[in-house]
């Protein structure tokens, strides 16, 4: 039986970042092939190569035994490859039926648009995937899971032979998940090959026939699901976990630095959150995707100010209505989306380092080159940032070094409270442990640290206490040394959608 899709030694780089370093992969007809890997392991890049959105730098790509060098999205579409992206690739201004039609109809330029047919077709497909969505509603009126259902309906309608699903259940309710499993099994029975990406191991064991583990841009092996157990998979996926040493925690934290009391923000769905962090303490924040952790950080940093509740720093109630007010209060936030928010890619390392602490470096409001160069060199040395020079644009740095630049920007403000949002996401292993050591050093220097992470080993290894969030609420605080299972139990127990994984 010819495999539907074969990757041989596929590689792809973005500037200095090597996203894929020679990946082998194979998809047979009628199988569900799970793709497993941590964030930044290269799953998304691999998918985009398969759909023609990225052209690989090297390696061979075969569809139905035929080599395709220049796969384009249009060609991939014609070959029957459909993809349901994690971030739905829909047209926000257009209606649901038009979104489906654009995906399903041949993109001929001068065909008559049959709106009645389009509506009928859309209603059929939406019914098939069990979505209660009006075909006339505009996509930007829909919620995230609804948009995902539209994507799935599109793939079903395209009668694709290769369907790629990128964490399709991440934002679905239990009922929607069950329906999705049904759809996946139905597709499989029709001889369609499915590449299924998920963090949820239980889901993989229930659905998949084979599983390929990706790590740091290369494949760590392909296995039949019946030949492998969860423990082995995690070891393959994480790789370093066994050897990775977290820096030892500090003995006794100091005074209460941050006290949050019944903090609410209606717009971002955070409800009545209360907790405190001491100087020198690292508070880990665990929770499901969409538990409200990033939203909480954005409230503390003044990006979406709170509607109710109080924030106190060192026992004094403070108002934080904008990031600049937060900085004045000694709060620093290293955001999750490094490339868009954490650094200014087009600016130099030096400019990035002094950006937030301009008041300290340039008190009169005028730039001073020598001071800036000194500060930048100091930061490069202290955080061991690998860069061609302090004048090099941040875009030329690797992910881990970009993250260090993002960190150094905030260290320059000498913050009292440092909030880190997924600080090691998309960072390679070496830089990861360096960043961990740095975080611990900051805490030792007396900073209060809030560490938000979806990497459970990281949370367990770094935190002095672990706060667990779910549904915009704080649902539990566990002591250091808790087992992964305990944290997961808290996160799942009250979230209302059991079965969701912590990652």
């Amino acid at each position, binding site marked *: 039986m010819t495999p539907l899709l074969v990757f041989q030694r596929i590689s792809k780089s973005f500037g200095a970042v090597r996203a894929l370093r020679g990946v082998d992969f194979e998809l047979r007809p009628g199988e569900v092939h799970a793709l497993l890997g941590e964030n930044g392991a290269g799953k998304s890049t691999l998918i985009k190569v398969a759909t023609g959105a990225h052209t690989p730098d090297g390696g061979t790509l075969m569809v139905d035994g035929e080599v395709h060098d220049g796969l384009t*999205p249009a060609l991939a*579409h014609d070959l029957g490859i459909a993809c349901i992206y994690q971030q739905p690739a829909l*047209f*926000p201004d257009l209606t649901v039926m038009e979104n489906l039609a654009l995906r399903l109809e041949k*993109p001929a330029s*001068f065909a*008559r648009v049959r709106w009645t047919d389009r509506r009928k077709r859309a209603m059929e497909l939406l019914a098939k995937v069990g979505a209660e969505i009006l075909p006339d509603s505009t996509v930007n009126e829909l919620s995230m899971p609804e948009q995902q259902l539209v994507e799935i309906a599109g793939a079903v309608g395209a009668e694709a032979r290769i369907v790629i699903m990128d964490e399709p259940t991440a934002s679905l309710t239990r009922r929607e998940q069950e329906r999705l499993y049904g759809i996946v099994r139905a597709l499989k029975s029709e001889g369609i090959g499915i590449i299924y990406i998920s963090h949820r191991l239980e889901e993989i064991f229930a659905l998949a026939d084979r599983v390929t583990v990706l790590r740091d841009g290369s494949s760590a092996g392909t296995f039949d699901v019946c030949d492998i157990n969860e423990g082995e998979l995690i070891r393959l996926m994480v790789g370093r976990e066994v050897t990775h040493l977290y820096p030892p925690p500090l003995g006794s934290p100091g005074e209460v630095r941050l006290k949050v009391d019944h903090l609410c923000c209606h*717009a971002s769905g955070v409800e009545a959150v209360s907790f405190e962090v001491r100087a020198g303490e690292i508070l880990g924040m665990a929770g499901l995707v969409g538990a409200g952790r990033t939203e909480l950080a954005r409230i503390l940093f003044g990006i979406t100010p709170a509607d109710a509740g109080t924030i106190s720093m060192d026992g004094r109630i403070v108002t934080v209505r904008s990031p600049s007010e937060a900085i004045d209060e000694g709060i620093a936030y290293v955001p999750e989306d490094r490339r868009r928010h954490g650094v200014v890619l087009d600016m130099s390392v030096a400019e990035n380092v002094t950006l937030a602490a301009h008041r300290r470096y340039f008190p009169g409001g005028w730039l001073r080159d020598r001071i800036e160069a000194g500060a930048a060199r100091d930061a490069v040395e202290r955080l061991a940032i690998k860069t061609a020079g302090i004048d090099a644009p941040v875009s030329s740095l690797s992910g881990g070094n970009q993250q260090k630049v993002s960190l150094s920007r905030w260290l320059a403000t000498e913050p009292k409270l440092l909030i880190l949002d997924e600080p090691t996401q998309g960072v390679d292993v070496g830089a990861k442990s360096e960043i961990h050591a740095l975080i611990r050093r900051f805490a030792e220097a007396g900073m209060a640290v809030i560490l938000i992470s979806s990497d459970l080993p990281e949370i367990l290894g770094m935190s002095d206490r672990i706060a667990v969030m779910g549904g915009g609420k704080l649902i539990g605080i566990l002591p250091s040394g808790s087992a992964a299972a305990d944290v997961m139990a808290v996160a799942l127990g009250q979230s209302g959608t059991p079965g969701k994984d912590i990652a």
Partner: protein
Amino acid sequence: MKDWRYRRELAVAALLGCILLGLAIWAPAFYQAQPLLSLATREAPSLIVTCGMVIVILTRQIDISVGSMFSVCGVVCGLLAASGWPVWSLLPAGVVIGGAMGAVNGVFIAGLGLPSIVVTLAMLVALRQGLNLFRQGEFVTLPDGVQWFGMSQVHGQIVVLCATGVLVALLAYGLQRISLGRHFYAVGSDAEASRLAGLKPRRVTFLAFVFLGALTGIAAMVNVVQSPQVQPLSGYGMELKVIAAVVVGGVAISGGRGYLWGAAVGLLLLACISPALVYLHMEAYWEKAFQGAIILVAVLAEGLRARSARRHRTDFS
């Protein structure tokens, strides 16, 4: 939701209705057939260019060179007519010349990925001054039989209006009912998503500029036949008027959203201000100030709508 899909367009139409009603009450003289016909005919070229501009703005681009293209098309076709080309051949000639200029814009913007506002700014300046250079501001005198196609003025005006109406209706139909029309929307809504859906965004963008160019050529023809001479500065300032009409008519400058008929109503609204001021015995030189105020109100309304929509969504990160 569906009932409110056209709320913006209907609001503009209602405002236009109010002005027309006000004129009917306080200045019934406005409704004399001949001046009204002349007014409508005078605005026909702008209306056609507005349709083209809608296409370009829907694809999330902009073209500020239309005024210069309009002038060039008019003069070149005038010269062709003066050198003995028959009247009927002028229209295809205009389409070809305009389409070619649009294609030049398209090559730079879609082909090389340069920002449309700068490319068309360069075209605006180069074409305008190039025209001045070769014509030195001279008018082109047209041979007999070109003005109003050799018919009487009223008949000519009716022909022009009917042709414009049919063209606009066809374009409005095409944008909703022909797949290419929907591709303009798709590319403007999300170029990356359209690439993933197998469309060719660059080609679609290129075509949008060619369409605008060709429509500008047609509009120039509609203008040429209205007078015995071609004025070389006929398109001066047209780009801003047309863009204003598109914005007032509810087409989003960020692409992918809006209707052609909305923009057409927007243009009529802007066009009515000047005669309304005259007939209501106000001073006509307030026209520009009113036009500016209407644009600002339109963009303000759009901004407030977007803001409230954002507030209703729980997550906007």
